[in-house]
C-alpha cells in the first residue's frame, strides 16, 4: 500500500513542479492542482513506489505533448488521458496496472495525479526525466533502450492516433506533427513497459521530491532559509544573485524541430560586477558567468525572486528585476555518454559540450 496524498501535498506539488520547470506560465499547473483537489474530495489518491509493483506489471507514462496553443488556452475536456490508456491497452492486449509522469516538473509533473483519480490507477513515484525536457525522446528510458511506442495520443477535438515507431527521434517527429494538427497539445500515453524496466531505468522519488520542494518554498520563512533548505535537500547552488539588464527574443538561430524560439537574458551581479547570461528555449539551457559555463543542460536551472523566495516565471523577467539563479544537478543517468548525447547543449543547437562530457 502506497501513501495517500493530501490536498496539502497537491498544493506543495504545484509549487515544486513550477520550481523545477521555472516555467513560462504556471497557470496550467494551477488549474490541474485545483481540479485534483476537487476530485480528491470523494476519492483517494495513491502514490506508490515502483517496488510495490510486480516486475511484469504493465506501466505507462502519462503526459501532455505540446507544440502550439497553450494547454491553459485550450483546456482539456477531461476524457483525453483515459482514451489514451484504453488505446494502449487495446494495442498491447494487456491491462495497465499503474501510471507514471512523463516528466518531473511543469504540467507533466502534476497531470498523472488527475489521471490516477479518473482511472483509479495508482501513480508511481517515478518518471523517465527527473526534470522536464522538451522532446519525448529525451528520457532515461530511451538511454536504457526501453521502446517508446506504441504511443497513444488524443487531443481536445476528440481525435486520436496511435504511433508505432521504433526510433524515438522519429517518434518525436511524428508525434510533434500530430500534436500541431490536433491544435497545440495532445494527451499522451507512451513508454509502456514493465515495472521491472521502469525500476531499472527510471528516476525515482520524483513526485515526493516536488512535494518536498513545495513545502520548502511555500513556508513562511526567509529567502535565505529557503535557499539553505534547497541546498541541503537538492544540493542546489546559487550561481548568482543578479539584476536583469537585457532580455532578447529570437537571440539564436534555430532550425531544429524544437518547439519555441530561443531567447536570452543578461544579468549583472552588482556586487561582483560579473555578467551572467541565460540561454533559454522553453527551459533555461545554459548559464554563462563572464563567459564561463556555470550550468548547462541537463543541469536544472531555476530562478527565484531574491526578495520573496518565489519562483520567477521566465515570462515575467523584466529589466531591473533582481533574481537568484539556482543550479541543481540532474539525475545521474543524464551525465553518462548516452545521456549527454541526448540532452547536452549540442542537442539544443548550442555548439557547446557539457563540462562533464570528458568524465562521462
Amino acid at each position: 500500500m502506497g501513501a495517500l496524498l493530501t490536498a496539502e501535498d497537491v498544493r506543495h506539488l504545484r509549487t515544486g513542479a513550477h520550481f523545477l520547470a521555472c516555467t513560462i506560465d504556471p497557470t496550467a499547473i494551477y488549474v490541474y492542482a485545483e481540479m485534483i483537489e476537487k476530485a480528491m474530495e470523494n476519492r483517494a489518491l495513491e502514490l506508490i513506489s515502483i517496488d510495490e509493483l510486480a516486475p511484469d506489471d504493465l506501466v505507462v507514462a502519462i503526459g501532455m505533448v505540446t507544440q502550439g496553443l497553450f494547454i491553459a488556452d485550450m483546456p482539456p475536456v477531461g476524457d483525453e488521458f483515459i482514451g489514451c490508456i484504453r488505446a494502449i491497452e487495446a494495442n498491447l492486449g494487456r491491462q495497465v496496472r499503474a501510471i507514471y509522469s512523463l516528466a518531473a516538473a511543469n504540467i507533466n509533473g502534476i497531470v498523472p495525479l488527475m489521471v490516477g483519480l479518473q482511472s483509479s490507477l495508482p501513480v508511481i513515484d517515478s518518471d523517465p526525466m527527473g526534470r522536464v525536457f522538451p522532446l519525448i525522446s529525451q528520457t532515461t528510458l530511451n538511454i536504457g533502450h526501453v521502446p517508446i511506442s506504441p504511443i497513444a495520443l488524443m487531443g481536445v477535438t476528440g481525435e486520436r492516433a496511435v504511433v508505432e515507431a521504433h526510433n524515438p527521434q522519429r517518434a518525436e517527429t511524428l508525434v510533434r506533427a500530430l500534436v500541431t494538427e490536433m491544435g497545440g497539445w495532445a494527451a499522451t500515453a507512451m513508454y509502456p513497459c514493465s515495472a521491472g524496466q521502469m525500476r531499472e531505468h527510471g528516476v525515482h522519488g520524483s513526485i515526493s521530491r516536488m512535494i518536498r520542494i513545495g513545502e520548502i518554498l511555500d513556508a513562511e520563512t526567509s529567502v535565505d532559509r529557503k535557499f539553505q533548505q534547497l541546498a541541503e535537500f537538492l544540493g542546489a547552488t546559487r550561481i548568482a544573485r543578479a539584476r536583469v539588464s537585457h532580455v532578447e527574443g529570437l537571440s539564436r538561430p534555430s532550425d531544429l524541430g524544437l518547439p519555441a524560439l530561443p531567447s536570452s537574458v543578461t544579468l549583472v551581479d552588482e556586487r561582483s560586477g560579473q555578467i551572467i547570461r541565460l540561454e533559454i528555449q522553453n527551459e533555461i539551457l545554459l548559464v554563462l558567468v563572464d563567459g564561463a559555463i556555470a550550468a548547462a543542460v541537463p543541469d536544472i536551472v531555476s530562478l527565484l525572486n531574491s526578495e520573496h523566495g518565489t519562483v520567477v516565471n521566465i515570462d515575467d523577467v523584466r529589466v531591473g528585476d533582481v533574481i537568484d539563479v539556482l543550479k541543481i544537478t540532474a539525475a545521474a543517468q543524464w551525465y553518462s555518454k548516452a545521456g549527454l548525447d541526448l540532452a547536452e547543449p549540442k542537442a539544443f543547437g548550442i555548439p557547446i559540450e557539457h563540462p562533464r562530457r570528458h568524465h562521462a
Partner: protein
Amino acid sequence: MRIGLRLQGTSCRALVLDGHSVVAAAAAVRCTTLAEAVDTTFEELRHELGTEITKVTDITSDAGRVLVARKPASVIAIRISPRPPADAFHVTGLPALVEPVVARTVHVGGGHDLRGRPLAPLGLEAFLAELPGILSGEVRNIAITSVGSTASKDHETRIADAILSSDSEMRISISSDFYSSVFRDRDYTAILNSALMETGEDLAAMLDASGRRHFPSATMWFAKNDGGRAPLARLAVIPIHGLRPEPAMQILGAATLAGAPDGEVVICADSGVTVGQIRGGLPATRSVIRQGYEASLASNAAVVEPYTADHPVRPAVPSVIADLRSGQDTPLPFGLVPTLAAAHDAGQVGSAVAPLTAWIDRLETVSGRADLQLVQRRAEEDAESAAVQLGASPGLTRIIESNVYAMPYGNPGIVRIRVQAAGEVSGDTIEDAAEIHVRTPFGAGEGASRWAPC
C-alpha cells in the same frame, strides 16, 4: 489645467494641476448620491478657479473604487471550444466572487489553433437555435470566449454579430479584446467586463453630463490600471481597464511630485509598504493582474510588490519614498526615510497627469530576425496610431515599451509582440517636470472629508 478626480461610494475628491503646479486640492465631498458629490465638487472648483475655469482642458476620473463596490450585473457566458467539458472537474473555474454573476453558460463548438486555423467548425446553427432562449431572459450582458482567440477572433465576432443582429441592445464583451494566453483569464476578464459595462455606462454618462455643465471646454477621461487614461466614453465598453487604477496612479503621482520619470517608487500607506517602478514617465506594467492561484484579469496594470526587509537597494537608481499614511508621527518601517511627504494625494496627482496610453499585444509569424524587426516596427506604428485615435497629438506620442516574447512549446516562428505607446494632447509630460510647485489648496485640509450641502 488638469483635474484628477477620485470617486468612491457617494463621495468625490478632486485636485487641480496647472502645468506641474498643484493649484487646488479639494477635500472629499460626500453627498447622498455620487452624481451630487461630483456636481458639488465641480461647483466648488468653479468657484475656486473663477475665470480660470476655461483653462481646464482635461478631467480624469479614477472610478475604480466605484466599479469594485457596485453589484456586477448578471452575465451569460458563451464559451467556444471544440468540445464541451466531459465532467464537472474540467469546467472552467472562476474566482468565487465572480462565479455567481454567471447566470447561464452556453457551449458553442469552434475555436482556433495558434496559427489561426479552425479546430472545429463554428456551431453557429446550433447557437442560433438557442439564441431566442438567451434573448428572452432578463440578462442583457454577454461574455464570449473562444479557444485560440489570441490567434483568431473570427468565432467570437461571428457569435457576437449573430446576437447583435437579433438584439442590438445587448452588451457584449469578447475575450479577444483582452490579451492573455490563458483561456480562463480571458473568460474571467470578459465576464467581469461585461458585468461592469452597465455601471461603466452610468458613470460615463453622469460624469460627462456634469463635466459639460461645469467645464464645457474640458475633455473627460478615465484613469486606467496601467497608469494611463482613456476617453470617458470607453468606460462603458472596457470598464475592466478602469477597475484598479489606484496603484498605478499612486506610483505615477508620487514620481510626478518628486520630478522623477525613471526609478523606483516606494509607497508607504496605512495598509503597508509597496514598491513599483516608473520608466519613461509611466509605471512598469504586467499584462495581467494576478490573484494568487485563481484566474488573472487580463488588463495591463502596474507591477506592485510588497516591500520587504530583503528588498535589493540600488544606490545608483533614484528612488522616491512616498509617505502617504494618514498619520506620520511614527517612523516608516524598514528604516525607510521619506523623500516625499503626503502633501497631496499622489493618486489624484497621477490621475491628473496620466497620459493617453494604447497597447498592441498580438501574435505574429516571423521567418527570421529581419522579419521580426519589421513586425515589431509595424506594431510600434500601430500602437502610436491607436494613441492618436484616442486623442493624442501625432507629434506627442512615444513608445514606452516594445517587447517580443518567444512562445514556449509554440509553433515555430510564432512570437508575441507587446508594445505600449503613450501620447498627449498637448505638452506637459512628467518628463518635463523638474518639480511640482505647490500653491495653497482650497477647502478643508487634505485628507479630511466632509458632508457637503447637497
